[in-house]
Structures are given as structure tokens and as C-alpha cells.
């Protein structure tokens, strides 16, 4: 979670609200579909994982994204 939060803080420098499991894209002004792509690619690179095409459905919030990562890491 800390690593994901750091990536999100890095990407959205203007957002200074809380970064927790409940955070959704709507709450962050610059979090559009392009930012979503950047976030997914940054996560892949940071954790050394690759999502398969059927796994890439937009997570509803940060908590779901963390779950996706954990599931992926568990398979490694």
C-alpha cells in the first residue's frame, strides 16, 4: 500500500487529500483515463508484475488495485 500511495502522490502532485483504500479516481482532479494507464504501467514496473489483458478492468478504488497487485505477487 505504501508503494502504491507513493506512486499516486508522485503522479498527482496537486492532490493533498488522504490516499487510502477508499480513494477513487473521481476524488482526484487529474485522475483521468490517461492517468489510469500511467498508474497501471507504473505499478507494473514498480512491482515487477505484468497484468494479463483479462485482468485489466479498471479497479473501483485504490483498495481494489492493491488487491490486484497482491494477487499477482502471490502468483509469482
Amino acid at each position, binding site marked *: 500500500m505504501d508503494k502504491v500511495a507513493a*506512486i499516486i502522490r*508522485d*503522479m498527482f*502532485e496537486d492532490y493533498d487529500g488522504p490516499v487510502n483504500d477508499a480513494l477513487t479516481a473521481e476524488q482526484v482532479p487529474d485522475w483521468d483515463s*490517461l492517468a489510469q*494507464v*500511467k498508474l*497501471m*504501467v*507504473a505499478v*507494473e*514496473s514498480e512491482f515487477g508484475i*505484468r*497484468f*494479463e*489483458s483479462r485482468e*485489466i478492468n479498471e479497479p473501483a478504488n485504490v483498495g481494489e488495485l492493491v488487491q490486484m497487485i497482491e494477487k499477482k505477487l502471490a502468483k509469482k
Partner: protein
Amino acid sequence: VPSFRDLPWLPSAPADFRERARTLGKAASGWGAAIQHLATHKLDARAAATLGKAIVRCRTAGHSLAPLSAFKLGILSSATFDLVAEQLPAAAARHGVDLTTVTGEYDQVMQESANPASDINTANLDACLIAVDHRWLRLDRPALDGSDPVGAALTQLKAAGDAVTQNARCPVIFQTVPVPPLALFGNYERRVAGSLRTQIEDANRRIVDLAIETGGYVLDAAALAERVGTDAWFDPVQWLAYKLPFAADIIPAYADTLGRLLGAIRGKARKCLVLDLDNTVWGGVIGDDGMDGIKIGQGSAVGEAFLAIQQLALDLRARGVVLAASSKNNDETARAPFRDHPDMLLRESDFAVFQANWIDKASNLEAIAKTLNIGLDALVLLDDNPAERAQLRAALPQVAVPELPDDPALFPWTLASAGYFESVAFSQEDQARAGSYASDARRADVMAQSRDLGDYLSSLDMKIGFAPFDTIGRQRIAQLINKSNQFNLTTRRYTEAEVAALETDTSVFTLQVRLSDKFGDLGMIGVIICRPATHNGAKAWDIDTWLMSCRVLGRKVEDAMLARIAEAARAAGIATLIGRYLPTAKNNMVADHYAKLGFTLLEEKDGARTFALLLASYETPELPLTVL
């Protein structure tokens, strides 16, 4: 095996990179140089984006980014190019360019180029990159029916290029097209007129022609994809899910490749290759190993590796790159292989400037730049010694200093891959340039500069270890005693048996000195033998042998060794240390060794000097080394 994708010639970013990038704008001046310096490191996507944002902040604050050259690049792409664009300013700064990008809408190449009111066409661009792939060109399917998709593709690309030229009034950067690994015919692929490979390779030839006809440039994406491998380049998942033009982890390599091109367009390509000599253009140390001891020439892998780096230097020279040498050596010693070694490819006359002396490299590189009347930012230094590289970077960040792997077999790969000598033209003048600088291997006047290296020495994290002679060190001690010529005060040779005898001789004081730093373990780098003597009626130690490896020059190692000797001498009730310099053909560099350490000259006879240091007046200095 190193990979181009990892840009292994770039040094790793410092630990405080993000902090330094974020606080860039707060400096009082020198923003451009600071940006370029930070950009010279190996940057992952996040670090490149962080630096990119810092560049924007500096620009917005109205700071001058000189010496970076401003460049506004339009980008028309058939894919999601934003992730690439985000990493471009940092990569461009590495090559001397202050880059602003204007990215057209996703997959709107024709619309953006044809509309005079589009962002691209109203941005007052310096150039526009048309980054389209085989899909946009409709070269993504085999054409086995005799149709001519390549002709249609070129017509479409030319239409986009012409529209940009007309509306944006700037040159176009065309991109060659990588061939996707989807062969239908296997080995027969190249023989089928309409196969993917045949079509795309044909298209690439015609794209280059198009660039020539229209005064444009070529970004050779096909060559880049070939280097990193098309299996890695074409990432089907990242294409389908994100519409990335190529795999995300190739972006730093792509950004650097484009950065070089922009730098070359702005005249920022480097002009002069400065070669270190020992262990860079031949194996071994000429001052210690001698002409018949250095490794160069056919018959051994190492000798041939050094031939290959010499050949590359000669090829670069033929292309217009000026060669210079900078080596910690005596001048005559360093020139000898170029004059007399039959296996050397490089000769003295290939060099415009030849600096072999014991003055620091930074001062010598300044002298080289001054003599050639070019900027420090036109120099590249190839040097096998990581500490020399780090010191040069700390002193003169404008000079490009590639990281080198330990294995000389990889030196040519590294130098060729780093792209310092990118070009956008090749003319007869280029070919003549190296010769237009007098190739007389002249010695440039150089004055040692005292320069602020900041915390460079302490950043090396040096750890020094002292031990008396012992059986474990015996062989290496004997080897050093019999091989060291340059940093050797007395050049007294002892056999291994004599060294063994010293281990148990309680009347002598011996030291074997080891050093390690953050780059690795340098092993045994110094040997001391002190014998009992008297001076003015008091007990003294006569330093019979003091030798060191030249690799650790300028790192306060000799100061640390003296501190250790003084400590032991005091404990033994010694009042004075006697130091001697016995001149040979090779050890002139240490003529002032004892004087520099604070010894007083007692007498000089036929060049031989005797010095003394009263321990009562010796104070142990603060040193940037940790004693183990």
C-alpha cells in the same frame, strides 16, 4: 550481457535525486546546468517524470535554462504517446536540449496535420515527429493479392509530412517502422513480395528517401527495436490494453535515442574523444608492466578486446571525431607503445592532444578543450577507473563520462551505444575534421587546479586496512615489491623468501595496506617497510620501502598510511621518521612525496633525497577514510 534498454553507460541516480529535482527552482542560478547534470543519470519512468516536472517549474518561473538549447517538438502519433512524452524532456536535457512537447490527439495524425488551426500547427514548432507504426500505415497485413500497400502507405505519410511542412512550417522527423514478429512464411518471408517483412523493409527505405527529399530527419525506431528485440518492443498486452506505441520499459531507451537526435539538430553532439590509456586502450599499466607486459594485439581475448576499442576510436576519427589522450603517466612512458609497439593500431599522430602527467584529469581535460578551442561539453572521457570517473564528473559535470563494465570486451559496445557522436549530416568536411586539428599529439600546458570536489572523497566511502606482513599477503607483497615502478620511493626489490623473513623479524616494522571503496575492493594497494635507525642520537625508523598503486592517487591514501606509521612509531618510542627518494627512470612522480607529507629535506645528492619527520611535531590530519 548488458542491454541497450538499460542505458548501462549512465551512472545511477544519486540517492537524493528526487529532492534535488524538486528543489531545482530554488537555486539562485545555474538551473540549466543543474538540470543537465541530473539528466545525465540513469532514470526510470518516475525519476524522468519528476525531472520533467522540475524543468517545467524552472521554465515557468522564468529561469534561464542555458546552456540548454530550447526546442519545441510537435508529436503526431497513432498511439498513446503521453507516457513517452513525459520522459522526453529529461532525456533531451541529457543531450543539451530544453525540450517542450506539443502532443497531438491520440490517432489524429491526418486531422492535426491538415488543420491549420490545430495545436500542432499553431505552436511555432522547431520540428514535428510523426511517430506512426505499421498499423497506421496499413502495413499490418500481408498483401498477397498483388496490391501495393507500401505505395499507399508512403503516399499517406508524405501527405501528413507535407501538411506539417506547409502548416507548421517546420521540418519533419519521420520514424522507421519496426517489423512485428508475426512471420507467416518463416524463412521464406523475405522471398514473398507482400509479406509483412518485405513490405515494411521496403517502406523503411522509402521513408528514408522521403526524409531526404523533404529536408526532414529520421528517427530510426526500426534499428532501436532491433537492438532491444522486436519480441520485447511489440508488447501485445500493453498495446491492446493501453494502446502504448511499444512496451513501457523501452521508453527510456527510446527517449534517449530521440534526445540524441534533437541534440544533434541543435549542434550539441560531442566532438572529441579523450582516451585514458592504462587498462583502457591496452591491458595493464605501461609504467609497471612495460612494453612487453601490456596486453594488446591478436592471440588473446583481452589483447583483441583492446584492439577493438582502438579500432573504434580510429573509425570515429575517420568520421570526424577528434582524439585526445589523458593518462596518469610519465610522458615518454605513455607515448612509447604508440611509437614502438608493433601491435598497436593507434599511433601518436592519431591524437591532436596527448596529456600524460601526474596532474589531475580535470585540469588536463580543461587543457585539452582549451587547446582544441572547443567547450568542455564537447568532450567524452573513456576511463576504466571508476573513481577517476566519479572524480571527473564531480569536477566537470559538462564532460560525458560513460560508466564502463569491468570487461574490456564490452568497451566498444558501451562507447558506440552511448550515442555521444550522433549526427544529422555527414560531409567531406566531417571526414577532414580530425585531420584539420594538427595531429601532432601535442602536450597542452596544464596547471593543477585546486577545485572544490565537495564531499567527493568522503562519498567514495573508502575503507583502509593495515596489517603487518603475513603468509596470506606474502605473494602479493612480493609481487608489488618487484613490479611497482612508478609510485615507489626506493625501488628496492626483495624475493619472496626475503619478504617471508621480514614477517618474523621483530626489528622491522612492516605494513600491507588494503583499500576498498563503494565501487569495490581494490585489494592490496600499498607496502611499507621501516628499519631501525638513529637520527641525532635518538631512535628513528628509516622507511626502506614505500610503494603504492597508482590507481589510488589523489585519495589521501598516503596521508592515511603516514598516520598509521606515525602511530606505530610513537608507540615504539621512535622520535623521527627518515624518508628516502631514490630516483629511477620511472619514479619521478614521487620525487616530492615526502615534502608533500610535511617531511624536511636533509640532503640531496645525485638526485637522491633524504628527508626527516619529527614525530613530536606531527599532527594526525582529518582524513576521508575509515580505518578498519
